[in-house]
């Protein structure tokens, strides 16, 4: 395994108790991601994809194993350090968008900057800039309920981009979208990957999309890696 990989995962396991039953979500998973890779993660429900994503995103801690991002051992960070990691190094995109319903698109996008201590004026300026990048500036004053699914996902992508992270983590970003919109969203992620050199890790059920846009693929089943391939 290449030691200067951008993201390196070694012997990662996650076990949790569901009542009295011990559930193994991830079982000794190891793989690496190169800088600028668009990695697809595929697998059936319950295969541990989301758990992997949460650990990569610094929301959850592994039971054992190491994760290194840009040479930094993420699995050893404390709570506050993890918050900083989430704030500055990764941007997360969710299937159900996870936007705050009472905020406008602009406010949702600018929200992460609040925790970074950026002044309001600059927050808004930067949020407008990112909204423009995802093609949603004209809709900046609309609330999520007034936006289509595709538009909401663009807002989520803009929010993930606002702190200029190196990695985008997308957990089934097209799960709630029709096929045409899905393609547009994945296209947007691919563009960001290509034009800005962002490393994208995307979970998806849709093999056609992964085949079209991803340049690497990890296949999970029952918490284990059953396939790792480079596609182009």
């Amino acid at each position, binding site marked *: 395994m290449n030691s200067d990989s951008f993201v390196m995962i070694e012997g990662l396991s996650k076990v949790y108790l569901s009542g009295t039953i011990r559930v193994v979500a991830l079982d000794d998973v190891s793989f690496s991601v190169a800088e600028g890779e668009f990695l697809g993660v595929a697998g059936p429900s319950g295969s541990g994809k989301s758990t992997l994503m949460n650990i990569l995103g610094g929301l959850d801690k592994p039971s054992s194993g190491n994760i290194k991002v840009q040479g930094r051992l993420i699995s050893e960070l404390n709570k506050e350090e993890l918050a900083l990691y989430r704030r*500055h190094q990764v941007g*997360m995109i969710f299937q159900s968008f996870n936007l*705050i319903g009472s905020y406008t698109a602009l406010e949702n996008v600018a929200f*992460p900057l609040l925790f970074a201590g950026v002044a309001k004026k600059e927050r808004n300026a930067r949020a407008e800039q990112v909204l423009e990048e995802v093609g949603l500036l004209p809709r900046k004053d609309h609330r999520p309920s007034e936006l289509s699914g595709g538009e909401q996902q663009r807002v989520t992508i803009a929010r993930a981009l606002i*702190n200029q992270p190196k990695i985008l983590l997308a957990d089934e970003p097209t799960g709630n979208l029709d096929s045409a919109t899905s393609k547009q969203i994945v296209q947007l992620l691919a563009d960001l990957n290509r034009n800005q050199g962002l490393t994208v890790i995307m979970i998806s059920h849709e093999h056609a999309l992964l085949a079209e846009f991803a340049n690497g693929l990890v296949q999970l089943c029952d918490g284990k890696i059953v396939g790792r391939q480079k596609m182009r």
Partner: protein
Amino acid sequence: MRISDYIELSLCNLWKRKLRTFLTTCGVVIGVGALVCMFAFGKGVQKNITEQFNKVDLFNYINVSTRGGGREPGRSHDPDDAAWRGQEDRTADANSPRLDELFLQEVENIEGVEAAFAELRFPAQIRLGDKEQFTLVQVLSAATCRPMPLRAGCCYEPNEPNGVLISDSLVRRLGIDEPSAAIGRQIEIATLTLDFSLASLLRMVLSPGDQALPVARQSYRFAIAGVAERMPFGGMGDAYIQPEAAGAMRKLSLTSIWEFFRPAGEAADYSMITVKVRSPKDIATVKKELESRGLRTFAWIDQLDQMRTGFLIMDMFLLAVGMIGVTVASLGIVNTMVMSILERYKEIGIMKAIGAGDKDVKKIFFFESGVIGFVGGVFGLALGWMVSTVINQVVNHFIAKQGVPYMSYFSFPWWLCLGAVAFSVLVSLIAGIYPTLRAARVDPVVALRHD
């Protein structure tokens, strides 16, 4: 995060749930309002008492009496108690000097003493036109009564022996509404005396049901020189006359029951004299000097510590009553914040996912509690002030009819105003501790999984 952002965010979040925020804040407003009222009342009472004491410079006075024979304020002796009477006879004769005019002059020569005068009071009937009032007349020299605050007129001069100073409540009771209208009016002071003349005794024996005591009435004419704003020494009398005038009157003194049995013609010893010192600093030395002469002394300033303890107990009691409302209000805050956190469970998850630390989340909810506390504190203070103003007006309206001058029964020192708001914020922050910890504990993985 910046402080301004925390404030803006918490105001924004609270505004989203207007009704709930309003109701919770109302609870705080009422709680703080009640507390402020209670405290302001306690402070007002204390301020009035202390001010009144200072006004009549009560702290410059020492009451002096013979050991055993004198009465201490607030304590009375049963003259039938043989043991006590025996003690009085023994000690008064053996050790104590006689409290008479000579002694007064002697006391005035003690270093630090400004004046010494006998304290005499006697009951009398005061008549103006067809109105009659029964009251106590106090004997005070012109020099002593001069610093008294007056409503109208001026204090009597030593050369006008028939001048009298009366209180404005007595003026009202005598049917005069305007104090200045009373100046110069002639009043009649009628005293009661024991009449042991043969005719009177015969009358008592012959018709026992008619008259219990051989009492006679004697009238003296006085002119009102001034109307006092309030009576000093706790208002022990409603009229003041000079010692010279009092000396010329036949009267029953109330200073001691023994006066009843004093043989006619014998010069009266005072049972108590009052010594005025130049400043409260002189109290201790003068007291020591008087005590070394075998006298019993009593100074109001010694009661100050006891008064302070009393004030403290009063404060604690009012505080305890006032805290009931604040406690209920703080439970309201806990309830509101917990509800808010349950509703915003997912929002907290989102905040954490996009880079908020536990500390950020805690602070966001802390600020929301704090804002409720601050707004509640400010409006609570306003409410407390309004309610106490209304109560003050109503009370003054009713007691003004009895001739009591306008008084503010509530006091709002600056520290009470600042303290009320600060306390409200503090209580709200304490109420916010549990909800805040709960918010920080939210697991983003679980929060984001729920849709």
